[in-house]
């Protein structure tokens, strides 16, 4: 269970997170939606301790991330996987080494085991025969899938997705969404997705939350969002220009 309590965060006098409260249920997929620049990525970075809140607490299984030291934090991070917006693959090493990277850093496996694991992880995301390619040689969708494979290779308890479908064509978006659903079923991880793709959210989410002006204004299942009374939620869901959201 991950709980964010009264999180406030400002960058150079601009308040990004304003008393944010949210909890993520174990082994469920939660999609946090919101407009670009509403602080979704900032929230995500708070969850893995890449950013520290100005005030408030981040609790991971009742452990406060701010109260532990760096070494303990790194131990904790081994239970996380994260898929960055552009994949964040290491562009100086090939796909195989990218996926094998967490294995090599944290587990002392024989080279044969590493190869076996990497090949199966890439197969899981529907890729094969690209192990020796460099990240720059792949398309955006492939890179994202490699990133998913890398995030899942240590079989983490929690996987965070930073805008997994952004910048992809609808078909590839669907592929990624299906990949998330299938891998979640397979690995039973807690999924946290931030996205502005409402259709994808309906499809993948067990719970949807909406972040607006640094706080959660609505949280519930897909049905609740489809029938929400909140004018902000309505405007976002329908994708209309007219409404209370200041453009």
């Amino acid at each position: 269970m991950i709980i964010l309590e009264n999180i406030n965060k400002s960058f150079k006098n601009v308040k990004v997170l304003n008393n944010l409260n949210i909890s993520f249920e174990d082994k469920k997929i939660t999609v946090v939606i919101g407009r670009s620049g509403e602080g979704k990525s900032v929230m995500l970075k708070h969850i893995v301790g890449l950013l520290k809140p100005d005030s408030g607490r981040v609790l991971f299984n009742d452990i406060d991330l701010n109260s532990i030291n760096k070494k303990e934090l790194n131990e904790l991070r081994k239970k996380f996987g994260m898929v960055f917006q552009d994949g964040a693959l290491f562009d100086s090493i090939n796909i195989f080494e990218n996926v094998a990277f967490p294995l090599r850093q944290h587990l002392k496996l024989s080279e044969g085991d590493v190869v076996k694991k990497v090949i199966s992880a890439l197969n899981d995301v529907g890729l094969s025969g690209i192990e020796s390619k460099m990240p720059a040689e792949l398309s955006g969708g492939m890179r994202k899938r490699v990133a998913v494979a890398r995030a899942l290779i240590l079989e983490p308890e929690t996987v965070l997705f930073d805008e997994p479908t952004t910048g992809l064509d609808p078909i590839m978006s669907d592929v990624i969404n299906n990949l998330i659903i299938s891998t979640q079923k397979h690995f039973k991880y807690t999924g946290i997705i931030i996205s502005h793709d409402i259709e994808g959210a309906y499809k993948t989410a067990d719970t949807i939350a909406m972040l607006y002006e640094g706080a959660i204004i609505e949280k519930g299942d897909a049905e609740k969002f489809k029938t929400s009374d909140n004018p902000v939620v309505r405007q976002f869901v329908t994708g209309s220009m007219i409404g209370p959201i200041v453009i």
Partner: protein
Amino acid sequence: MDFILRYFEKIGLFVLYIINELGSLIIYLWNCILSILRYSVNVNNLFDQMAFIGMDSFYIVGLTGLFVGMVLSLQAYYAARIVGVTYMIGPTVALAMTRELGPVLTALMITARCGSSMASEIGTMKISEQVDALEVMAVDPFYFLSVPRIIASMVMLPIMSIVTSLIGIFGGYVVYKFFLGLNGAVFVDMIYKYIKLSDIYNGLLKAVFFGIILATISTFKGFEASGGSKGVGRVTTQAVVLSSIYILFADYILTSILF
């Protein structure tokens, strides 16, 4: 009134910026040392960087040394000829190379070649979230990126400094013997006569410090990158400029302490 005060404000901001920068740098270096204690050293990356700073820089460093040595010999000749002490050209070249030019030129050339590369590499990783990815994968960026570079630089700089000095002295010898047509044996004999062990080792000690300075600043600047490719370019420039300034500054300080 405001008009005048604004200038003082600017000066104040500048001073604060410098202090802040220096403070961050020291904290950064401290973090690197902590990282060594915590995770030891990434040997794989260390060797990569040693190869990069060492052998791969051989030609540029060697060429620099060669030409500087040749020029030194030639210039020393013009001065020495006046008072008829051309036999002192050898020691002049050797002392200048081992004590001063070897370490400093090596450091500056390595800064230009490797420091810039470090800053831009880490800067690119930073803006494309690769550094974040590292952290999320529970890999300390200091351990993975900074420490290997700093240690490699610290170890290889004296080595490359030896290369520079040696090739420089050789260049001086070539000019002395073949271009100026003087007795080469005198050149060599006088070097052995006038150069002391401390000259060599203090020069190498300088090189160690220069290595630490250039790698620390370059990697630190890389981590400061933000705002896309332009940001990477900016920090790369800063890295090279700052490293060079700090190296020359440290050179003065070290010279006044060591010699």
